């Protein structure tokens, strides 16, 4: 908390006006909070409910039965696309995809940002502009080129192929984030280090990287969440046992089963949503701070 109390625009004027204003604000905020929380609450509750409970009380209802078995079934037993190992293998597929893709794209983005802010060359601004163009490019546009590239590299339907796609697709964002952060590092620091005998890599390692945690946390959270939740590339460029969890979820619900296993589906969805949620819960503070804070106090 800051030392000085934040300015409270609703805390001035007459008592009645003040109370009325606060009431309006809190009611509105409460409604919005409800609007966002209710779907999550329904899915959470449904993950504990039995099938007869669903058929008697419908999809949206308070639980009349309670069981944890749907979570374990969804995790390791339920049949998805022909194999009956639950969503566990797909979960690990996602992990195997998201970890290297996040690390590589963040590392390269950081290096790009360093070059584009501190080692400018003729045309570096134009290059930066072109790179950030990728931020606005819809994924559908690059589906065919990627299909061709993956085919040429022999990476069709592999996790490595998806890692490659996410690294390249993510570079626009990571470069943009890091470059705009590094621009605020005073040039004098770089100059001083150059006079001190440090070269390109030493300055990066000893001066720039130690200043980077706020922005690296932002890029890691951003990349992790986006890559984990990404669906389009996942569903198009992978199939069978090589699918990441987002694609597998669809296969799970479209399993050709006569009856929808709502409890299992809910549990699977929640497990799939958990990693980015946890990342955000633990890193959210740094995320906001990193986005608003400059490099140097």
């Amino acid at each position, binding site marked *: 908390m800051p030392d000085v109390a934040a300015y409270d625009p609703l805390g001035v004027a007459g008592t009645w006006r003040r109370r009325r204003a606060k009431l309006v604000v809190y009611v509105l905020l409460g409604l919005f909070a409800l609007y966002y929380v209710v779907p999550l609450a329904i899915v959470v509750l449904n993950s504990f409910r039995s099938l007869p409970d669903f058929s008697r009380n419908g999809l949206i209802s308070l639980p009349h039965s309670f069981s944890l078995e749907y979570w374990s079934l969804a995790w390791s037993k339920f049949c998805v696309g022909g194999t009956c190992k639950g969503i566990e293998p797909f979960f690990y597929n996602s992990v195997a995809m998201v970890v290297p893709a996040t690390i590589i794209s963040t590392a390269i983005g950081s290096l790009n940002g360093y070059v584009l802010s501190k080692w400018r060359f003729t045309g570096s601004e134009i290059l930066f502009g072109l790179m950030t163009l990728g931020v606005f490019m819809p994924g559908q546009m690059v589906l065919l080129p990627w299909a061709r590239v993956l085919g040429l590299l022999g990476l069709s339907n592999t996790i490595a192929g998806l890692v490659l796609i996410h690294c390249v697709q993510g570079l626009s964002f990571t470069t943009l984030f890091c470059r705009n952060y590094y621009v605020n590092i*005073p040039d*004098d*620091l770089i*100059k*001083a*280090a*150059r*006079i*001190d*005998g*440090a*070269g390109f890599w*030493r300055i990066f390692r*000893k*001066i720039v990287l*130690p*200043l980077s945690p706020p922005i690296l946390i932002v890029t890691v959270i951003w990349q992790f969440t986006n890559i984990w939740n990404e669906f389009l590339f996942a569903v198009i460029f992978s199939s069978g046992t090589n699918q990441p969890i987002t694609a597998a979820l669809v296969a799970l619900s479209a399993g050709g089963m006569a009856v929808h296993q709502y409890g299992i589906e809910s549990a699977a969805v929640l497990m799939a949503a958990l990693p980015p949620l946890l990342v955000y819960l633990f890193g959210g503070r740094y995320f906001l701070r990193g986005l608003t804070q400059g490099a*140097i*106090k």
Partner: protein
Amino acid sequence: MASLTIRNLNKSFGSVAVLKGIDLEVKTGEFVVLVGPSGCGKSTLLAMIAGLESVSSGEIRIGDRVVNGVPPKDRDIAMVFQSYALYPTMTVRANITFGMESRGVPKQARAEALARVAGLLQIESLLGRKPSQLSGGQRQRVAMGRALVRDPALFLFDEPLSNLDAKLRVEMRTEIKKLYQRLNKTTIYVTHDQVEAMTLASRIAVMHQGRLQQFAEPRTVYDRPANMFVAGFMGSPSMNFLPAQIAVSGPAAVVLAESEGQAMRLPLPDKVVASAGEGRRVVLGIRPENLTRYDRGRTEEKPYLGTIQAPVEVVEPTGAETITIVRIGSREVIACFEPDAAPAVGETVTLAVDMAKACLFDPETEMLI
């Protein structure tokens, strides 16, 4: 330690010429101050000496070596920045030893050099702190420590005192002077503050609009400024300029142009008149401290003392002296009085003009005659 030679140095950014034909010869062990108003190119010149800016044309030589294409780390220089540029994530200790570490100096030698510099600057107690935990003056010391820890050919200072408050600035100035007197290292020091230039320099290089205006000892720059720009820039309050004409008849003298009725005639040394030429139009430059209240006792002592009567318009006491603005013709002229002899507003004072100290400039070229 080494000398620095700059020959016909030019720098342009695109079509804008920032430095035009700079020639500078700095002897080993000299303290040279580059001074000028902002935008005069002094910081660019320093950056070029450091190797942080490329050379458009000309030559920079450190010792016997031409360094035009040499990267900063191989120029054997140390630099103190205006912003201090301390590495924010490192302790004071790491800040000071970073350069030696980069150059692969053995640990033992690093520790010794650190101890020497910390003692010299009295920053032993700060070594474990981060720059954000230091006051402005302490940061300044650490920044100097980082430069002093090595034994480079050249020390470069880029306005190192301008971020300090007035009192601390004066203290640090004295300290830099003391350090220099102890170490006697070749130093190039950039500042826009003419007092810093006067107090620190063994020689001052005054720059304006990308050109070197004058390069001489402080006394010379002050007493015999090469042109009207230097005359006006150095000294505070700055020199008064009055249009005048060398007297054609009578004893050697200069006659003020705008003297409204009274013939204002001020004596000059004969040789000045001889070199300027009778009847020539000139600009008379006279420093405020050479315009004081006329005192009969002193008149006898000094040769070439003229007098002018002038009404007083503004009186500004500063404590040590009283700055007075008087009107001569259509011009405002600044004079310095001792507080005891300060005039009142509206009073007409008789000013003693010490013409032995006066400078004459050509009105066209603005150069010293």
